Structure formats: C-alpha cells, structure tokens
C-alpha cells in the first residue's frame, strides 16, 4: 500500500487515537502528523511489515507518552483555560460524557493509554502490553487502577441526598 493511500484510509483513526492519548484535539492531530511524517521517511520498510497499522499505533503511543513527559518539563500546570460559555443546556448524556472525558484526561499518561486502547480501540491485554512495552499483568493493573480512580472521582461528583444513581 502506498503512503498516500494508507493516510487516506487510516489517517483519521490515527488522529482520533492521538486526540484520546494526548487529551487534546490539537495536540492529538500534531502527534499523528508527526508520526506519519516519520513513517513517510521509511515507508517502504513499514509497508513491508505484517501490520503497518500496529506499527504506527505503537509509534503513536510511544510518542504520546514521551510528549507528556516532555511537556511536564516545560509547562506548568495552571488552571485549565476556561470553557466558552455554553448557550443552552447540554443533554444529560452529553454532560455525563463530557464529565467522564475530563476525568479520563486527568489520568496519568500510561493509565490513560491503557484505558483508551482497551475501551476505545477494543484491544486485548496482550496486544495492549505489546504496544505499551510491558506485561499483560501490568496492563490489567493499570486499567484496574484507572477504573478505581474514575469510579471514586465520579462518586465524589454525585450530588448527595438526591437519590440519583451513580455510575457503578
């Protein structure tokens, strides 16, 4: 498969994965573009491997984790930029999804990567372990910790005494 054909076919999915791994729309696009640029230079070799998709996904995951470390060294976490005022109410489901996404973004990079690869890419432990360069046991531990964190934070966001059901 030629490089252009591959990007047209699979580029969007790489960008979407980049958005989830970085937690930022623009950074995700930058990251996917950077990974594709590096792949372009040695495309003949990459196209010959069994699964260029898996290869590029691994490049993307590694780049996302490295970038999060690099960013931590040059940027200070100050209050997130305030959202634009929203005119009209979001539906309840959309608001819940938004809240959940904010919590996912707050997870440590490797936990977030494991969660994204499991619940968005629907990959099994072994495949995720290969992508993250760790064992399947570590993947399960990362996901378990992430889910515990998300559940705890969601519970703390639920209004008390209203009889509303939390996500459990």
């Amino acid at each position, binding site marked *: 498969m030629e490089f252009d054909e591959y990007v047209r076919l699979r580029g*969007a999915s790489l960008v979407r*994965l980049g958005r989830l791994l970085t937690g930022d729309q623009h950074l995700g696009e930058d990251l996917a573009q950077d990974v*594709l*640029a590096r792949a372009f230079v040695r495309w003949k070799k990459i196209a010959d491997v069994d699964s260029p998709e898996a290869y590029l996904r691994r490049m993307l995951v590694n780049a996302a984790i490295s970038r999060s470390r690099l960013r931590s060294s040059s940027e200070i976490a100050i209050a997130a930029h305030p959202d634009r005022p929203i005119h009209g109410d979001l539906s309840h489901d959309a608001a819940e999804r938004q809240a959940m996404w904010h919590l996912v973004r707050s997870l440590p990079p490797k936990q977030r990567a494991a969660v994204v690869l499991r619940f968005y890419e629907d990959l099994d432990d072994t495949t995720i372990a290969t992508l993250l360069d760790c064992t399947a046991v570590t993947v399960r531990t990362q996901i378990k910790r992430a889910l515990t964190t998300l559940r705890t934070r969601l519970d703390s966001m639920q209004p008390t005494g209203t009889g509303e059901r939390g996500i459990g």
Partner: protein
Amino acid sequence: MNDLQDALTGALNAAAHEDEVHIERLLTNARTAGLRYRRRRRLVLAAGTALAALVPVLLVAAGLALYGGPGRPIEAVAGPSPAAPATRTPAAAPATPAAGDPGAAPQLPVLIGAAPAQKAVSTVGRGAFHVGVGELPFSVATMQWSSTAGLERVLVTPNLTPEPGRTDPTVVGRDPRVTIALARSTGGLTTLLGDKQPINIGTHRGQMVTQANTVPPLTIVRWQPGTGLWAEVSGEIDEKTAMTIATGVSFDRTYACVVPFELRPPPPTLAGKVSACSVAYAAGSWTGKFTYDYGTWTLDLARADEAGMDFKETIDGRPAWTDRAEGGGGPPTLRIQVSYGGNRVADVQATGKYESMTVTNFAIGYEMIDSPSPSDWWQVPTG
C-alpha cells in the same frame, strides 16, 4: 461490561469524533514534514561524516598545542556554573496588574539586562526569556512563559468573563488561548497553510495566514525580528487581534528564570546545564520551575503545595512520596516529593539514566523562599 465501562466507551467515542479530521491537510502536512525530516537527517549525517574526518586533524593540532607546539597558551574560559547558586541581583519587579485588568499584561518579574535578543541569538530558548508582551486587546486570566530547545513561548489565556465595560476577546474558534513565540528556527512554530498575506511589524516584513476554513480556524502572524530569529503570534483569534498583539511584542530585554526555592549545590562531578524554564502567572500569583540536563538524564525541579498529596514514607526525616516508572515505551522516571512543612513541597522528577541517590539529594536540598514576590526568588543561572 458494567455501567462505568459503558460510560467510558461512550465518552471516548464522543471525544474522538468531536471534530472532523481533514485528511488532505493531514496528508500534505505529513509529507512536507517528512521531507523536512529526511533533509535534516541527511544534513546531520553529512555533518557527522565531516566531523569524523576532522577529528584526527584536530587531535594532532591539540597535541602540538599542549606538548610544546607553537601557539598561544590556552586560556581558561570562566563561565557561570549552572549548579552554583546565582547571586541575587536586586531588581525592581514591575507591578503586577490585577487579574482582569484590560490592556496591561502581567510582565515577567525580574529584568536582568537590556541585551536585545537579536544580538544574542544563541541565548534564545535556553532558559532565560526575551519576549516582552505589550498591551493586549483583552484582560488576562493566566500567562505562562517557557524557554527550552531554542524556542520561547508565552501562552496567554484571556479572561473570558470580564467585568462590565471591559473587553471580551474576539475568538473565532473554541480555544481562546494565544501563543506568542520567539524561535531560532521555524521547526517549533505553526505550519503555515493557505494564502499568505504580506504584513509589516514595525520595520520588519512578515506574513499572515488565516485558516478560516480549517479546524481549528487559526490566524498566524509571523515575522523575523532579526537574522536567525522568527517570531509568531498564533491563536483562534481574528486578524485584527493577532496584529495588535504582534505589534506590541518586543525583544529588547532579557528576563531571568526565577523559582520560589534555592538549591544546595549538587556534587561537583555533576556538570548539568539548565535546559528549560517556565514561569507562570495566574490569579495574581506566580510560580516557576526549571530543568537541568545532564546529557543522559534530565531533572525537573519545581515547588508544589500539599493539596491532594499522600505522603506514605519519610526521607531525611521529612514526609515524602516517591514513584518510579519503568517500561511503558519511554525512559525510566523517578519522581520524589518531599514536604518541608507549611504547605511547601519539593517536587523533583528525573528522567533517563539517573542515580536515585542524586535525585534524592536534590529533593532534600531545597531551601524554600517564602516571599510571594517573584523579584525575591532565586534567579536560576541559565546560559
């Protein structure tokens, strides 16, 4: 799958598909960046080959100079030791405007010289700061200066809920942040796509690109304030706002990297250099952090507060927390947080081939500076 996992899957799918992906733009940018990357690799290879050819000649020349060959005596060049604490130079800190004050942007706290960036290109993006921000067409909520790898950036977040009578920024996209950058190459700047309009910033010619039909709808103003330097204002803002900000930017002062702590000098065998610094302003208060680069590993040094921290161990008699991360596709990291009491925490993170004891010594070697005024803080010695 339980409810939580269903909710998670839904949230991830919604976030991933929030904006459209412009495939042709992605393809063009990836190809362009790929070609640039290939050229750079070839240049590096060529330079390496040339250097390899020169090394024997240089070794012979050095041998002659040291062992009786003719020539001048070698003079030692005294430079600032990055590890040694810098002298605190009294400097008047510009008044910090109240949050939400329109027009007057917060200014970097410690001015250390009037050396124009144009005359010291090699110092740009090496820890100190050279970007002066003039009047802004909106009030400021947060501002952050960073200086690393040949690139200095100022990230400005406008105050989006100004008081009555104050200015609301004209934001054409969803992200209101504006970036002002000064770089030694265009590599770290925004990719210019679309029609370029010629503009003038003072006496310097430049270009403006408005990507109104793309996502995000960026406006980018770029000019060269001096040979070997590029400046840029970018954001999801209208052209007038971008030009107003660009016109107010100056590069004729040098500001110090300051942090609210000082370090006990590290072991003399460690010859690190400051490779990055960030100073941030938010809601009337300041903070700062910096990075030492030791070649095979880096060390981020910051100060934090105790909010949300759970100290489960003790280091040097102080409550502490450590976290090691190895594997996972990146270099190993060690993060240590040590409480100094009074809501003051030393926060250090080593990445790469570090020695744990050295990192620990940094974490217990902080001397906290309690003054809230950044003009009283430690001036990190930067190159």
